[in-house]
């Protein structure tokens, strides 16, 4: 199984885009004569899930990144960009081989990836060993910008801690005293529930019970009955994808949503609302994005994304888009000279981006500093109610930047 990812040939799309990139370069190169070091296009390796459960997320990140590059005429910091693409299939066991192939055989200068935290952590390890510049456009594992942080690793999405910590205060301020938490028993679940509980208890709240189900099981009925018996003031939950849809529907079908309000991490209702339907109505969540943000950057982004792909942009597309924006800032600072790495990384670390999600900057561990929004499901959308906490900065526990 481990050799499978290594032996698999490049996808046709990757070949096509690579060829197209090369063709563009050949066609345009006679028109200008840049320095030799900047002659070849900068090779960006996209290591994302193009198939499997997270395929849609991977495609949106890819589309977002490419949209930004297109808007800059196919260049970042004046340097031509060529893409090479690898499907990571969200398989941690193949992640190291895939990453090594991108860095070794494909000679990618920069790698962008990925969605799944397990895969991302394997990529982080290779990036640390090979000093490859890595931009993480989704995976939220705290460790990536914690104990495993490095100067050449950036994240344009969120840390799990960051996405739920503000909700602790929001719920305590709403007068909620007793909460039952429920999630899958795995790292992301533990990190999201942990951050919420940390802030909630700090503000005087009490966690009555910490319920978990094995990942990725979706049989919730026993625990829902338990919640009904415990009668907490509210429930805080984290599930995603199919599990999120089923949990929200089961919760509503049991009639609990009438007496015990449901709160959650933003992923509970992101990309799942349509299938959840009426059952999702009124659920409040926190995330670094909302469907109706009306800042000019978001409006312009959504319009451009729709024009390019025909689809409505979402947080995943934004995270990819901002990844390209971050790389652009780094390359611009060094005039496209990728060899001036230290200067480039310093510029990226100091970047201030007017992101569709709102103001975006980076902490010393290269995790985003960003607003976390309180949203409520209304009219089938995650509509912003307020800024739950502005400029949320992950504590980056265990990060020693060398």
């Amino acid at each position, binding site marked *: 199984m481990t050799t499978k990812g290594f032996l698999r040939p490049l996808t046709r799309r990757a070949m096509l885009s690579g060829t197209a990139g090369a063709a563009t370069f050949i066609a345009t190169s006679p028109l200008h004569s840049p320095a030799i070091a900047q002659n070849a296009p900068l090779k960006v390796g996209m290591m994302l899930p193009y198939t*499997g*459960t997270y*395929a*849609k997320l991977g495609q949106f990140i890819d589309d977002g990144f490419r949209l930004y590059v297109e808007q800059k005429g196919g260049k970042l910091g004046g340097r031509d960009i060529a893409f090479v693409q690898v499907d990571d299939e969200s398989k941690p066991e193949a992640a190291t081989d895939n990453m090594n192939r991108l860095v070794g055989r494909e000679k990618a200068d920069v790698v962008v990836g990925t969605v799944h935290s397990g895969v991302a952590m394997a990529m982080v390890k290779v990036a640390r060993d090979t000093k490859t510049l890595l931009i993480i456009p989704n995976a939220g594992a705290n460790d990536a910008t914690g104990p495993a942080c490095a100067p050449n690793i950036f994240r344009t999405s969120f840390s799990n801690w960051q996405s739920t910590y503000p909700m602790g205060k929001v719920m305590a301020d709403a007068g909620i005293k007793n909460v039952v938490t429920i999630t899958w*028993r795995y790292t992301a679940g533990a990190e999201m529930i942990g951050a919420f509980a940390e802030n909630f208890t700090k503000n005087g709240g009490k966690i009555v019970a910490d*319920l*978990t*189900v*094995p990942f*990725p*099981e*979706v*049989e919730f*009925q*026993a*625990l*829902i*009955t*338990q919640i*009904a*018996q415990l*009668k907490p003031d509210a429930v805080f939950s984290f599930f995603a*994808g*199919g599990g999120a*849809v*089923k949990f929200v*529907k*089961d919760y509503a*079908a*049991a*009639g*609990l949503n*009438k*007496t*015990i309000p449901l709160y959650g991490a933003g992923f509970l209702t992101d990309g*799942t609302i349509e*299938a*959840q*339907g009426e059952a999702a109505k009124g659920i409040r969540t926190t995330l670094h994005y909302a469907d109706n943000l009306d800042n000019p950057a978001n409006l312009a982004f959504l319009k451009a994304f729709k024009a390019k792909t025909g689809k409505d942009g979402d947080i995943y597309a934004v995270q990819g888009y901002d990844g390209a924006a971050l790389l652009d800032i780094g390359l611009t600072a060094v005039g496209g000279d990728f060899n001036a790495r230290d200067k480039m990384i310093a510029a990226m670390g100091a970047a201030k981006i007017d992101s569709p999600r709102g103001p975006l900057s980076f902490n010393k561990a290269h995790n985003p500093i960003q607003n976390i929004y309180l949203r409520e499901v209304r009219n089938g959308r995650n509509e912003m109610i307020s800024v739950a906490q502005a400029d949320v900065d992950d504590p980056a526990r265990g990060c020693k930047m060398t």
Partner: protein
Amino acid sequence: MDFITLGVQLLNAVQYGAVLFLVASGLTLVFGILGVINLAHGAFYMLGAYLAYWITLMTGSFAVALLGGVLVAFIAGILLETVFVRLLYGRDHLAQVLLSFGLILVIDEIRQLLFGKDVHAVAPPAWLSGSIQLTDNLSYPVYRLAICVFCLIAALVIFFVIARTKIGMIVRAGSENREMARVLGIKFDRVNRYVFAAGIALAALGGILIAPISTVFPGMGDSMLILSFVVVVLGGIGSVAGAAVGALLIGLTDTFGKVFFPSVSSILIYVVMAAVLLWRPSGILGRQDA
């Protein structure tokens, strides 16, 4: 825990067991009578759920989805038996595992092409969409109760067919002593085909029935496949009554395990399985001499 909550949890356990039984009964038929390990059983469960989603969307009727989905699965079963599964009889288990694992990949790709990878919801029929108030703050969807009733009916039909009809008699003879039955002039080709198709149809039926209370999503067959095997092994391979007992036992273990021993709930059903197999190596209702 008070008595009412205990009762509700018991209901949860029975309802979960009922669905497990429906899916596992198809597996135990194919396994016990044809001797074929069908790893693609979970994939047909998933396909059933997607068919329920798609047909309900097209026709607006869950009843049509129920009949249509089962029919499609039955026909698919007949075709598969004729073209592929036939070659597996008498071969070693590795060949069966390889072929049925290949089927999983193919079915998954077909699902990807036809329905995409989004998560979907299916509405239960209107007359079953209400709910019953059980405690002051907990209500129970009528549809979940209906599933229990439906599974009970399905179980009775299966028992009746096997115990009282001619085809059931042939099936039983075939699983007892195939050579002798063949000597007596029974042609198994057609029986095999129908048994396999019925097994597939039962998997799909489980998927269709669960669709309104579950959600329809790509990986839903995987965990169901493992649970079905646990149920089959626990109850005794080839025994439909054993599957019923096994399914109920797993339903109870899983539900009360989650409530009383949450930290080890994920391994509890396997602990129960190991314990039962130590006590009865061929399963609860399996033939102990086998």
